[in-house]
């Protein structure tokens, strides 16, 4: 196995892929958004229960490759309890990691996704859940749908 591939499929990712956290519908959700990766067909729905401006509860559901599922799973553990601006900041960091491959030391498990940068076609897989979560936070307290646009 090549070094790039080992970098991509880190233990953290394999673990989240095998035992996804917060997976399934959230019965108490008051926000939801659906993300679609038109390039490869990956899908991800994110359910939120917002409490004021904070995410009180979160879950995700969908299908796709190990990268997209692990990323959505890990994301749910990282943004729970956060406000929209805090999530935006985290997403910015995450986006930098997957596009540049540079993970600042202080960054939690998100750094495991640094290997994605060597596989540009997979960047959208890694960001799919994040896009859905951000859309869900922006959405009205009712189901909505979003499709990722052409340019990431």
């Amino acid at each position, binding site marked *: *196995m*090549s070094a790039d591939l080992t970098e991509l*499929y880190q233990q953290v990712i394999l673990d989240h892929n095998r035992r996804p956290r917060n997976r399934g519908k959230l019965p108490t959700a008051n926000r939801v958004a659906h993300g679609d990766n038109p390039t490869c067909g990956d899908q991800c729905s994110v359910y939120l229960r917002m409490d004021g401006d904070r995410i009180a509860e979160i879950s995700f559901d969908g*299908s*796709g*490759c*190990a990268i997209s599922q692990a990323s959505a799973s890990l994301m749910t553990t990282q943004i729970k309890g956060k406000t929209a601006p805090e999530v935006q900041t985290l997403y910015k960091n995450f986006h930098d990691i997957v596009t540049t491959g540079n993970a600042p030391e202080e960054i939690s498990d998100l750094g495991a996704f640094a290997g994605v940068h060597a596989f540009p076609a*997979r960047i959208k897989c890694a960001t799919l859940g994040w896009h859905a979560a951000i859309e869900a936070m922006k959405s009205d307290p009712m189901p909505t749908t979003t499709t990722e646009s052409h340019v990431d």
Partner: protein
Amino acid sequence: MLDIQKIRADFPILHQQVHGKPLIYLDNGATSQKPRAVIDSLVHYYERDNSNVHRGLHALSMRATDAYEGARTRIAKFIHAADPAEIIFTRGTTESINLVARSWGHAHLKPGDIVLTTEIEHHSNLVPWQQAARASGATLTYVPVLGADGEGGLDLAALDRLLTPQVKLFAFTHISNTLGTVNPAAEFCRRARAVGAVTVIDAAQSIGHTPFDVQALGADFVAFSGHKMCGPTGIGVLYGRRALLDQLAPDETGGGMVSQVTYDDARWKPAPERFEAGTPNMADAIALGVACDYLDALGRDRIAAHDAVLAQCAMAKLSTLPGIRIIGPRAGAERSGLVSFAFAEVHAHDIVTFADEDGLALRGGHHCNQPLMRKLGLTGTTRASFYLYNTEEEIDLLVASLRRTVKFFGVT
């Protein structure tokens, strides 16, 4: 028997390394590679003959016109059409089917009519019929596929029931791009004709792989793409029986397809011009004719036999992998040169990514067959699709690569 090493020498692209490994191209269901002769034809055209074909009386234009119309005649021969005028150049299968769905559909479909298709169609032979049915008030009905893995083929008993006199058109694929199923196309055409339904064959996966005779099949319309039969991208064909084409209104309009235009009105040329508005894709049409030469020199019967050997070999060897689910016809049954499979624990995209590291080009996903995937309870499959330059050794390398991958993901 095909001389595979000699054939491989004809395809420049095969002789490269990917991630330090020799390329093993098993994505022929998506698009085939091109032999030197086809590439040379493009170069020759642009270096010697390039000119617009319409109404040109100078030397280059006459040469380009002769070559373009010669390609039409060549392709007519390739599918045994009665008349070169039955060959309409399009961008590919998708455009060909859209042309029929719109022109024929608009003229002939009305509320109460039924358009029949099957559950195993590519989106390109499904969504256009949804649109045509919606536009006309007709109903779209599907012939079911049998078996939990789609291994039972289309339900012929159901077909008998479904083919009522309300059915105005029956559109079906010759070979399924996901299951590998070879449909009994002649039988389907015969049954459809018995109720007066027009037939549309999606020959995208079959045209470059098996002998193909539109008259023996009794088909009304046939759609295919050049890029899957060793031809260039951007060119394809709609075959239509002359009697049907002559009644059909054009789809696109503009230069080259009109005989008389005033500020108020326009009159159409006969087929094929009527259906080829604008400057045609001359270079690629001509190169498609060369692809026909190439395939016929080898023999499509031999290519089909080679495909079948590889498919059998792949079925046998893939079945030894832990946790694999192979879809489509069971081992031993007729199947074209492609095999789709899935592992419950490993997503197709991860498999394709791992295979790529070993130089293998596979396709993973829904293969433009979303409803079929849903019916079979799959989010996608990995597909290995073979062609005339593939070998059994490549299948061994495929199986070895897959074995490493599923092991990595903990499948035992």
